[in-house]
Structures are given as C-alpha cells and as structure tokens.
C-alpha cells in the first residue's frame, strides 16, 4: 500500500501545484511509482504546469461517475519512464461533484498501484479541501514567509489535526535571501517557529520556476537550486537525512558578479 500525501496551504498562490508536481517528479526520478491527483475541480492546473494538458481524455469525475476505469484516466508522463502519472481534475464541474467518500476510494485504489499518491488540494478550507484531505494519511503544508500565507497555513494545520492527520510537515516556498538579509522577510527559522511543525524543506524564490511552468516542464528536470531543493525533499520523504539548502546565507548575485562568477 502506497503512502497517500495531501499537499495543502489554505491560501492560494503559494505554490501547492508546483510543489506537488516536483516532489512527485523527484520521487519518480528516485525510482518510485508516483500518482498525482488534481482535486481542484473547475480550476485544474496541475496538467498545464506538468505540460500534459493535451493528453487528457478522462478525468477524476469520469472515474467517480463510472464513465471510465481509473487506469484509462491516468495520464502517463513519458519523461519519467512511466513512473509518474496524473489523474486530472474535471475542468467543467464544481467542487461538490465528488464526495469525500468517493475521493477516499479513488485514492485507495491508486495507493494499491503506486508507491506514492500526492494529492494537490485546492485553495480554501471548504468542500474541495475536505475531499482532498479525506483520502490522505499524511500532509505537506506549503507556505511562504509572508504574514497572510503563514496565518492560513496555521489554520490548515489546525484543521488537519481535526481530520486525523496528526503530524503534517512544512515546506517553505519562495524564501527570498536578499529580503531576509535586509530584515524585510521573515526568516526560515521564524516561519518554522511560528507554525511549530517539522520542516520538510525550503525552496528559494527563483525565476526558473516561472520559466519551467511556462514550458510545462517539471523544475526537477533542470539543474537549478530549486531542482536540488526538490530532490532533497524527496530524499527526506524516503527517510534520508539531507541538510537544508543554506538559502539565506548564499552570496548575492552582485557579489558573485564582482568576483567574476556570474553574468
């Protein structure tokens, strides 16, 4: 039976979809079989960020309503030799189309065939959140070192406890080294301290993520710091101890340029 992990944040726009895709892709690169589930009915996005939007035939709602078998709805990503698959959300239906019980069944069925099922949760804490959480036995909470994102993450952590997911792990996304150094962004340490849950990983604020999204390519296929950070997170999920990227202490680009290391 595979592990069933929901990726959630409360607030929208903090990077849930990117994090879901790239943790999944990094686990696939490590040889694990991974299924990604987009539960954002009506606002699906995992397919475009992944770059497989033109391969979709059936979706989550088709599976739930019995129009196709689960296997038929799964979109395989050829770049990961069949180890990464997506169950897309329906784009034309709303969040109430699927019940928590139906979600639980779909995720359980996926967990029989895959080592990891990563569930991309919609923003908010309404029915879509409840559905996404229903099938999971673990959670990753994504936040940014920003007051609104941290507040919403805290709320979600409280709700996860109520849904019997007792030890969610934290991913801090878009940590901006320069802002932290000049005191205009909460540090990684502050963010983790305020939320009080174990840290799974930290991601730098890097342009490469936008570019990868534009191209529909998982970040982990490149060789950026963010790619490295995602691989570290995957390693930690697999139980390895990997030191955190020292994002806040890396030399700024201006200094590197001065020393002749960067253009």
């Amino acid at each position: 039976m595979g592990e069933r992990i929901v990726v959630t944040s409360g607030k929208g726009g903090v990077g849930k979809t990117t994090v879901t895709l790239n943790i999944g892709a990094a686990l696939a690169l490590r040889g694990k079989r991974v299924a990604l589930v987009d539960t954002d009915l009506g606002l699906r996005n995992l397919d475009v960020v992944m770059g497989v939007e033109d391969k979709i035939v059936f979706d989550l709602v088709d599976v739930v309503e019995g129009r196709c078998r689960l296997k038929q709805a799964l979109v395989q990503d050829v770049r990961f030799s069949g180890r990464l698959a997506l169950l897309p959300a329906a784009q034309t239906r709303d969040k109430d189309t699927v019940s928590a019980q139906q979600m639980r069944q779909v995720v359980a069925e996926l967990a029989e065939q895959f080592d990891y099922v990563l569930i991309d949760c919609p923003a908010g804490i309404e029915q879509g959140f409840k559905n996404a959480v229903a099938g999971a036995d673990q959670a990753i909470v994504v936040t940014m070192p920003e007051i609104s994102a941290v507040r919403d993450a805290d709320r979600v952590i409280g709700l996860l406890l109520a849904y019997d997911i007792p030890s969610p792990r934290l991913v801090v996304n878009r940590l901006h080294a320069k802002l932290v150094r000049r005191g205009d962004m909460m540090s990684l340490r502050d963010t983790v301290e305020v939320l009080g849950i174990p840290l799974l990983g930290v991601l730098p604020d890097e342009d490469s993520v936008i570019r990868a999204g534009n191209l529909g390519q998982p970040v982990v296929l490149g060789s950026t710091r963010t790619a490295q950070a995602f691989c570290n997170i995957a390693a930690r999920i697999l139980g390895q101890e990997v030191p955190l990227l020292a994002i806040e202490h890396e030399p700024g680009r201006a200094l590197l340029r001065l020393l002749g290391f960067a253009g």
Partner: protein
Amino acid sequence: MTRRENSGFVAKERLKCVLREDRSQMSAATIAAMRADLVQVLASYANVRDEDVSFYLLRGNAENETKLMMEATVAARPQYSR
C-alpha cells in the same frame, strides 16, 4: 534620517498575536479580560503581579486540539498585608 523598521520582525510579532486569537478562537479582548480576572484571583492568594503571568499556546498533538496555556510565576517577594 530615521532607521527603517525591520518589517520581517514586525510580521512575526503581528502573526503571534493573530495566531493566538485564531488558535484559541477567542478575541484579543476576551483573552485580556480572562487574564485580568485570573491575575486578580491569583493576587488574592499570592504575591503575583500582572507581569508575572503569561499566556501562550501549545498545539496538542494527541488530543487534536490547541491548548491555551497560562504560566504564572509566584514571585518570592514579601507578601503584602491584606
């Protein structure tokens, strides 16, 4: 020129206040009133001043709930006569 405020620090301090309310589902005013009442009760038994009492929140894992904790330092000062 005045020194620019460290906005990351301000954010953290503001968050602490907001989260105390969010987690306890009590307003800042309610927490302040409860605290004042408790200090008054404690003060009738021991030498406790307002600054000796602090409130903080613990996220309980086992019971799936957040706990509002109160810590009162009963200072070893001479008892005032009542």
